[in-house]
């Protein structure tokens, strides 16, 4: 077997009380797509950050082409040909698309022609734009290169970050959940790029919670659990169910929505680019391509982004602020976790936030009651650790997402709006969140959730609203007609 | 038909001393038929230069300036000379060759007088605290130097505390509090002006040392006069800024008419303590 391009030997890394990496060894060969899977908090991102020069391991070493290397910063990693695209969104809002793609290796040309020493004095804009366009083109994207990145949607910004890694022409490309916010079409483009890079001999380390993707593209798969490598499987030896079992140590049954319960009375009605009507005991999926307006629809229903006129239980209501909607019994899980959580506060403070009036009086909070309720919720949601006084920033992504859910379960709401609720969540947690959605509906509530994963839409919804160009293009009920292809047809248009 | 204007640039606009001086300037100018145009500088030299340039641009006939600093605003004098606008210093002075005249107080002499007063009042021996004015100001440096010159004649008078700072009552209070703690046997506090002195005398009263620690001020503002009357302030120096301002206008008007003056025209100063306070209290 040839020397692996990138290898880890016996890496350990500890964060105060948590062993994020526990004697991890790992090998990545040229021309291979190597998947890394594991539950939320298993240590995947930590391993990747060691490769990217962001974390220093406590012990163990990293080898490139068989030779041990010391990576002190991302710049060191790039110098060794390792390009990492991290899990968190990392773009510079005020810079242009082209600059963001080429950040860190902006092309130059001499200020004084022929005098190479003056190259640091002059940015080569033409080459920068060309290279950026090429990188984006590989993802089948054609953005306005001079547009500021903060004008783009979340998913579009995610694509810019991926293009940045591609622009590096690295020998090792590390992608930490690149598809979490992408929709089908972008995912397919990305896979095509990965295939091409692989053919060109690039080694690819790929982290995802979408196990079907792994099965589709990975040549090899390493499974992590609690900071340790628990399995290293070659293509053919893993199926989605198999991987899930390795990850969690048990079988994970992804339940699909059963026979639709008889929908109850209408809870919420609004006319926003079409009729939106949510019934009690109903889970409704909201499908749409990038930029189709799903996020805006959910936000307006929630009183943000300008608000909306709506009817709750037949009562007319104008929501101008989320506070209005919450008072009327509407909650929302936003599409970016940073919009849902005060990261430096405790779990309890976060859960209590939309429910400040519920615990105690205006002049005194009943912290004991809050702690009790929150602990119960954390246990019910299987948040690890189920500690109300843990600081949210230190939780893994999946656990953070559950804390956002807990905020609304603690509140007395009837309608739950969710924007990409399972983005970046591991299979087990995802199944749990799906179950919680249905339980919420089962108790008489209504759920409207947007997702870019069509199988999730089809699998979990009693009904589906499809959006196209800021308007509702179709309304589908559960039954024979509700297939992924039908939803795809309803949302697709030429952009 | 516009009246001829004179320009005025003073170092501060929030200090009662200069406010009174400006009052005198305005009153005398009105009597002589001049308009007065003022620019502010707030102890910022560049700002004072800018202000004088602005005055010249306004076409004033002459300028009364109290320069923040002896050299720092020379450019203002140069600008005036270049525009052939006479410029006369009032109170503070400049080293600029373009300074025509200085309507001055005799700072060093005043300092010597204060020093002699303190030395005499404490019986020629004892510990003294100095709460001086802002750093970099020649006036306050000259005053302190004059005081120390007097003290040098009394070997038993000892300066045990010497700090400078902003001319505010709060600063006087705080520094005096600390000076009194550091020196339980303090005999006197020299304060750079009346605001500082009033703060210092408050600290003396609060420490129960009224009558044992004497405090001196400077400028003779009304609250200080009252404090002299009730004994919490031993002495202040009356410079009568109103008269000073009037004198400045007179000198400038005289110069414009072609009269000749010596390089420095001094204003009188009077030490006010319990003996002569009766004459100085404003008549009700």
């Amino acid at each position, binding site marked *: 077997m040839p020397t692996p391009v990138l290898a880890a030997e016996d890496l350990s890394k500890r964060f*105060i009380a948590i062993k994020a990496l526990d004697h991890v060894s790992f090998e990545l060969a040229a021309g291979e797509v190597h998947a890394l899977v594991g539950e939320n908090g298993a240590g995947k991102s930590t391993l990747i950050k060691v490769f990217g020069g962001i974390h220093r391991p406590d012990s163990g070493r990293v080898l490139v082409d068989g030779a041990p290397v010391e990576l002190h910063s991302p710049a060191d990693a790039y110098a060794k040909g390792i390009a990492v695209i991290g899990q968190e969104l990392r773009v510079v809002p005020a810079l242009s698309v082209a600059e963001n793609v080429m950040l860190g290796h902006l092309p130059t040309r001499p200020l004084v022609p022929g005098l190479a020493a003056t190259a640091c004095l002059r940015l080569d804009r033409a080459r920068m734009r060309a290279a950026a366009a090429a990188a984006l083109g590989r993802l089948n994207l054609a953005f306005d290169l001079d547009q500021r990145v903060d004008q783009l949607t979340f998913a579009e910004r995610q694509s810019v970050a991926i293009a940045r890694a591609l622009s590096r022409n690295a020998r090792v490309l590390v992608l930490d959940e690149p598809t979490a916010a992408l929709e089908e079409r972008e995912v397919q483009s990305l896979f095509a790029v990965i295939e091409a890079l692989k053919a060109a001999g690039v080694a690819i380390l790929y982290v995802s919670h979408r196990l079907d993707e792994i099965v589709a593209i990975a040549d090899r798969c390493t499974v992590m659990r609690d900071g340790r490598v628990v399995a290293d499987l070659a293509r053919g030896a893993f199926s989605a169910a198999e991987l899930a079992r390795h990850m969690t140590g048990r079988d994970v049954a992804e339940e699909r929505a059963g026979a639709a319960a008889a929908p109850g009375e209408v809870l919420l009605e609004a006319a926003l680019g079409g009729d939106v009507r949510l019934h009690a005991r109903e889970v409704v999926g909201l499908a749409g391509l990038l930029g189709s307006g799903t996020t805006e629809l959910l936000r307006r229903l*929630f009183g*943000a982004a300008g608000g909306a006129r709506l009817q709750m239980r037949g009562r007319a209501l104008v929501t101008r*602020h*989320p*506070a209005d*909607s*919450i*008072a009327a019994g509407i909650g*929302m899980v936003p599409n970016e976790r*940073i*919009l*849902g*959580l*005060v*990261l*430096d*506060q405790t779990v309890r*403070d976060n859960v209590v*936030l*939309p429910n*400040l*009036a519920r*615990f*105690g009086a*205006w*002049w*005194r*909070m009943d912290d004991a009651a809050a702690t009790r309720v929150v602990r119960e919720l954390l246990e019910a949601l299987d948040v690890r650790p189920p500690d109300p006084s843990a600081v949210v920033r230190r939780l893994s992504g999946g656990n953070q997402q559950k804390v956002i859910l807990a905020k609304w379960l603690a509140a007395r709401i009837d309608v739950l709006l969710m924007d990409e609720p399972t983005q970046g969540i591991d299979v087990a947690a995802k199944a749990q969140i799906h179950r919680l959605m249905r339980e919420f509906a089962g108790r008489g509530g209504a759920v409207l959730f947007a997702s870019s994963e069509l199988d999730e839409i089809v699998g979990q919804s009693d009904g589906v609203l499809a959006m196209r160009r800021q308007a509702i293009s179709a309304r589908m009920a559960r039954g024979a007609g509700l297939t992924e292809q039908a939803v795809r047809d309803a949302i697709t248009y030429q952009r | 038909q516009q009246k001829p204007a004179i320009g005025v640039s003073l170092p501060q*606009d*929030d*200090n*009662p001393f200069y*406010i009174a001086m400006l009052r005198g300037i305005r009153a005398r100018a009105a009597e002589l038929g001049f308009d007065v145009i003022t620019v502010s500088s707030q102890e910022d030299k560049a700002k004072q230069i800018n202000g004088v340039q602005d005055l010249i641009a306004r076409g004033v006939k002459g300028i009364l300036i109290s320069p923040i600093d002896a050299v720092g605003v020379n450019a203002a004098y140069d600008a005036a000379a270049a525009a052939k606008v006479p410029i006369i210093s009032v109170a503070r002075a400049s080293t600029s060759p373009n300074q025509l005249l200085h309507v001055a107080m005799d700072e060093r002499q005043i300092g010597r007088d204060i020093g002699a007063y303190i030395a005499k009042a404490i019986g020629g021996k004892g510990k003294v605290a100095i709460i001086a004015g802002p*750093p970099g100001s020649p006036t306050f440096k000259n005053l302190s130097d004059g005081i120390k010159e007097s003290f040098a004649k009394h070997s038993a008078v000892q300066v045990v*505390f*010497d*700090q*400078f700072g*902003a001319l*505010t*009552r*709060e600063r006087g*209070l*705080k*520094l005096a*509090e*600390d*000076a*009194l*703690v*550091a020196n339980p046997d303090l005999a006197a506090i020299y304060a750079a002006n009346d*605001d500082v002195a009033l*703060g210092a005398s*408050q600290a003396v009263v609060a*420490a129960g040392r009224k009558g044992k620690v004497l405090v001196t001020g400077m400028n003779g503002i*009304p*609250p200080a006069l*009252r404090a002299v009357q009730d004994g919490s302030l031993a002495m202040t120096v009356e410079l009568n800024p109103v008269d000073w301002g009037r004198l400045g206008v007179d000198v400038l008007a005289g110069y414009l008419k072609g009269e000749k003056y010596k390089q420095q025209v001094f204003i009188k100063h009077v030490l006010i303590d319990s003996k002569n306070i009766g004459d100085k209290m*404003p008549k009700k």
Partner: protein
Amino acid sequence: MRRDFLVGQIPLITLIVLGVVIAVLTPRFLSPLNLSNVLVQAAVITVIAMGMTFVIIGGGFDLSVGSVVALSGCVCAMVMMEAGIAAGVAAGVAVGALVGLANGLIVTVLKVNPFITTLGTMVLVRGVVFLLTGSQQVPIDQSLPQPFIDFGIERLLGIHYLVWVPVALLFALSWVLARTPYGRSVYATGGNREAAYFSGIRVDRVVASTYVWCGALAGVAGVMLASRLQSGQPTAGEFYELTAIAAVVLGGAALHGGEGKLYKSVIGVFIMVILGNGLNLLNVDSYWQRVAIGAVIILAAAADRLRARRG
């Protein structure tokens, strides 16, 4: 856990070390008179720093407090001469709260940056003070009512009345921040404005309210200072804004908001006050005092940063 706790108390440790060093250098430092002076010297700035803590926790910034101190002191004195002590005190605090409200509205409604907003009001309010008073102390020819002056001098249980004010406020306002829903919403808004908004907090109102607290407390400080200086002083309070912000940050609050505790800001104030007092007692040259104060500010902040790197 114990290490964590210790590391969280670095400002307190800094304060104690500073106190011990000064006490060793000059035994007068611990004399009852001096300790009582230190408390009084700290009282006014403590009240301002508490208001600043509200603003900073909420993610803001207030440069106008120094001018507000002068305004409220002068307004208090003017009103007091006409309408009695109670009216004067109320007017002083109210005018501070009003400036705070103006700051809050400019920041939230006009969306002007807090730095520039409060820099503007700092300059503007100082102008108003001078206009109101002709930049002469208030009153000029008379005394303020004796009970008001006594308040600045007299003691209760051996401690100046002026010191009891911040003590009482510390307890009351710590409760507000730590125990009321409103207090939680201040922390949440400063910690992550968007997340607070999506949790139904009316973030603009919360932010504006922090400026009102800050203005009102600067108003209280102005009244206290008027009592201590036995007059309204139009030039009072210069540089208080920087001292107060420094104290809050030395106490461990983050300038980006969402963190901070009132008692820690008080510790920050005492670091600054004790340092100044100690240097005066030692009759350190004014020039060297500046060098020492600058260095200690940086070192104290650097020590506190160890906390962040404990990981």
